[in-house]
């Protein structure tokens, strides 16, 4: 067994495989299918300061090798999450990272405050959700604005701050540099790509929200490229994501410069995807004589 462990900005994980926000519920939904404690870390559904009903259905639409979603951050609000959902998640004995999606800087700061001391080991700052009208991606496309949010959260909390970036920008490297400069401890790359599908019989958009976020294997090369560029430009660790379904997919991200990876849409194709990925990463290391998986981070561009 190779050493798959990773220390992601102070978050100690036995392997680099995390759940991607919004795809894994509280984990208990999958608990009858596999041993959740095998995962490296769990990331919560995007949380907001107050409860959010989410978008009008239909919220999902399959696309070639992927899907569009416009769930719209449906969640019970951070307070109810802490009392009703978090205990269950902590029960798996795996580090839990909270994904927070404020619509203003103040909301991010308030959620960071409420989540400290709850057992959460890190915050993932969601300034990249394409499915909400305020906050979300609007805060994550202008480097100065993104940096301002991150700076405020970092000042408030002692927890590691991971910033999840959107690929729907002209220059993701510039954005990454800005948030790294503002004190981010790590980055998550990438959130979904904006897109839409039209029902030609109805002559109307399929999604109730018209536009949604594209995820799944269809976007994987976009994610790998984002990680490749950003990893060479900043000194903080990266969580790579975007359609990872297999160990090989995860290795692409790791070789591009990701220290950890997140699995999201893959759970819908194969609910056992995370287990498969962990097993295949170990097999790859064994086959290639790699003692420590972290030695491969960025190996595709490092001398």
């Amino acid at each position, binding site marked *: 067994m190779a050493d798959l462990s990773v220390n992601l900005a102070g978050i100690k994980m036995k392997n680099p495989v995390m759940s991607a926000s*919004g795809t894994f*519920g509280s984990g208990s*939904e999958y608990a009858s299918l596999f041993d959740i404690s095998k995962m490296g870390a769990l990331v919560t559904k995007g949380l907001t300061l107050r409860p959010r009903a989410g978008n009008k*259905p*239909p*919220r999902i639409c399959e696309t070639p090798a992927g899907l569009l979603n416009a769930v719209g951050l449906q969640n019970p609000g951070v307070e109810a999450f802490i009392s009703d959902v978090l205990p269950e998640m902590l029960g798996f004995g795996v580090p839990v990272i909270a994904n927070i999606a404020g619509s203003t800087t103040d909301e991010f700061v308030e959620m960071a405050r409420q989540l400290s001391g709850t057992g959460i080991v890190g915050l993932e700052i969601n300034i990249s959700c394409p499915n909400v009208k305020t906050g979300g991606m609007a805060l994550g496309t202008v480097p100065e604005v993104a940096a301002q949010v991150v700076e405020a959260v970092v000042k408030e909390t002692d927890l590691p701050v991971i910033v999840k970036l959107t690929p729907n920008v002209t220059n993701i490297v510039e954005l990454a540099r800005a948030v790294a400069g503002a004190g981010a401890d790590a980055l998550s790359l990438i959130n979904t790509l904006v897109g839409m599908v039209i029902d030609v019989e109805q002559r109307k958009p399929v999604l109730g929200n018209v536009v949604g976020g594209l995820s799944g294997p269809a976007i994987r090369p976009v994610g790998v490229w984002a990680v490749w560029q950003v990893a060479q430009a900043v000194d903080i660790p990266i969580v790579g994501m975007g359609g990872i379904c297999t160990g090989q997919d995860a290795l692409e991200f790791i070789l591009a410069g990701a220290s950890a990876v997140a699995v999201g849409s893959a759970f*819908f194709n194969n609910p056992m995807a995370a287990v498969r990925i962990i097993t295949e990463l170990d097999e790859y290391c064994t086959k290639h004589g790699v003692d420590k998986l972290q030695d491969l981070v960025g190996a595709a561009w490092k001398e």
Partner: protein
Amino acid sequence: MNGPGEFICRVSAQVSLASDSYLLKLEAPTLAWTTSPGQFAMLQCGEGLDPFLRRPLSIHQVERKRGVVYFLYQVRGQGTRWLAKRSKGDMIPLLGPLGRGFTVNPAGGKGLLVGAGMGVAPLLLLASELANQQWEVVTLMGAQTASGILRPDAFMDYGEVRTATDDGSSGMKGTILDLLNKELDDSSYDMIFACGPLPVLKGVQSISIDQGIPAELSLEERMACGVGACLGCTCGGADGEYLRVCQEGPVFKAGEVDIDG
């Protein structure tokens, strides 16, 4: 542990029925024993990543002693087209049983099953379970034409079957809601169980409320995870909050959902 399982199931038979519909028989002993009427499974309908999502299909019938499960489905797109090409010996991964099914009160009663088109899919297992619990069962089936009335003979094992078609080629000429209204004029029932397109379910819902007969409605929605994690398959709840069709449903009490039919 309670909860769904992931099974790779062997196809033991597949029969093509009318109207692009198929009856798929799978070897799935655990599923056969653990499922209850109205629940569903997510079937992987392809070998690679396209189509990417599994297809939610209602469990149509089970033979517990033989360890087999039947799915009745219609070809609607890429996934079901692939599924329709499977034959004896092929393997299909599936996740199940999933969701909340119909309520079968062990006290017995008189139940009216309403299946519009492919909506009959979850009702056969329900009919058999109701019959097991000493319920008197009458099934109403509706379709555009006689060829869309699926498996009436199977339903006759558990009680009377009446049909309605738009063109009158089977049973009453009219809609299933016309047939339902007529049936309720003629007889009284303790409970209505319905599955079909949203306009039909909306009609059943208002009849249920108007006449004070409890009803349970099985909804269909696009799904991704099937287990309640992704919040992709929601429908409107009566209190304004969204409900997950895969988790709080697919079977809802008539008063629980706001059907935008």
